[in-house]
């Protein structure tokens, strides 16, 4: 069981909560406490809008253990409107309709269960085509 790990990351996972650099206003996701632009300390929480577009994507048929029950699924690099790229699954999409540049929006979905059906449910961000 990896309870503490999932619990620790819940804000980032559920709500796309990252950071903003108080020195140069760069938005940071995933949070890393140090601004990748100016190197200053950046611990101010910032909730992303969840809007973005597909930068690249692919479909996974041979999924890792823990994800095989939902395969095949589409994963993407999503360019958030605030700047950062995020790696995430696309959901509610038909694979053939996905394109680079497709506008997407964040939703909170079930990512996996921790271990087997007795384990905790892990929820987190995914993206779907926005309308």
């Amino acid at each position, binding site marked *: 069981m990896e309870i503490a*790990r999932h619990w620790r*990351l819940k804000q980032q*996972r559920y709500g796309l909560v990252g950071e903003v650099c108080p020195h140069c206003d760069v938005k940071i996701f*995933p949070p890393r406490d140090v601004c*990748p632009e100016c190197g200053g300390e950046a611990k101010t929480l910032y909730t992303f809008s969840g809007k973005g577009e597909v*930068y*690249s*994507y*692919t*479909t*996974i*048929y*041979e*999924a*890792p*253990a*823990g*994800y*095989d029950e*939902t395969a095949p*699924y589409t*994963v*993407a*690099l999503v360019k958030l409107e605030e700047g*950062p*790229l*995020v*790696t*995430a*699954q696309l959901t509610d999409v038909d694979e053939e309709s996905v394109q*680079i540049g497709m506008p997407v929006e964040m939703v909170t979905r079930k*990512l*996996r269960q921790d271990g087997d059906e007795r384990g905790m449910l*892990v929820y*987190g961000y*995914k993206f779907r085509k926005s309308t």
Partner: protein
Amino acid sequence: MTDVIIAGIGQTAVNEHWDVSLRELGLFALEAAVRDAGGLKPQALFVGNMLAPNLSRQAHLGALLADFAGLTGIEAVTVEAAGASGGAALRQGYLAVKSGLVDAALVVGVEKFTDVVGSEVEAALSTASDSDFEAMQGMTPTAQAALLMRRYTHEYNVPADGFAGFALTAHANGAGNKNAMFQKAIKPDTYTRASMVSDPVNMFDAAPLADGAAAVLLTRPDLLPPGFPHPLVRIAGSATASDTLALHDRKDMLFFEAAYLSTGKAVKQAGITLDQVDFFEYHDAFSIYAALSLESSGFSIRGHGWKLAADNRITRDGSLPCATMGGLKARGYPGGATGVYQAVEAATQLRGQAGANQLANIRYGMIQSLGGPASTAVTHILEKVS
């Protein structure tokens, strides 16, 4: 400072070795390297391995292999840098001998994939990526490569079969390597008809995971045994560099910064220019990685790496032969052993022992070992000592 000579080389065939254990694989390569070096005794052992704790439930490979090789008492540790573990172990061995603190260092790369079958293997591989923000989304190394290849293809307008040259070259060269997993050349339509693994990565864009072990024994020239039978090959340049672990944290993911940095340093240390490199053993875990390595290392301008393969310039009679013994694609991809295989193969070429695959008139070979999408890149320049 002293020169570092590759005095001994050894390798197992790369394959699904169902009947051979992790330690037996390592031991086979290790003993072969010691024999090849005329029985030189190592004082240190550096083991390159990526996934033994996950796949074989076995950590602490330094002590394990030293023990089984009858070398108990020597310095022995594991070096891990995902797919670059072999290259990273080689660099540790190099540093130990180069510094003068160790007379002879053994570097063994070993990987045993087949102790686990099924989706646990993908799960283990994904531990090399950002566990919290990549693997948690169900990402795999193959999917990472596919994201890169899709974006590359999009930005540079690469045709559907644009990457075929990498697989064709690899398989043509695998045909002359008795240790290769695939020893048969393929035809262009084999590539175009291949099934998708993770679109646009098809079966021939991804190297097959398999078991294997390779070893080199490094020492100083003055410690070589009398009557040393091989032409001397030295490590002329050695460098490693890192990049962001996660792809999404890169400003420019279509450039392998770590490959660029480590190549620059290694070439500079060797005192050569890039055009003096006679052949290149790149880390073609995926054909997109081969293209990006060629570009980031400086062999091609950006967006044109795939053309080197498409224009037959990386074949054995091309301007920059690559994957001369099959590369990861045809020799097989034995995880953390790969970087040491590259060293063994380049040394074989420089010694003139590459048989049917022997390149003519070569002096400098470059090998590059990547961890993940070049989150680690280890580059070495090997030189035939004249």
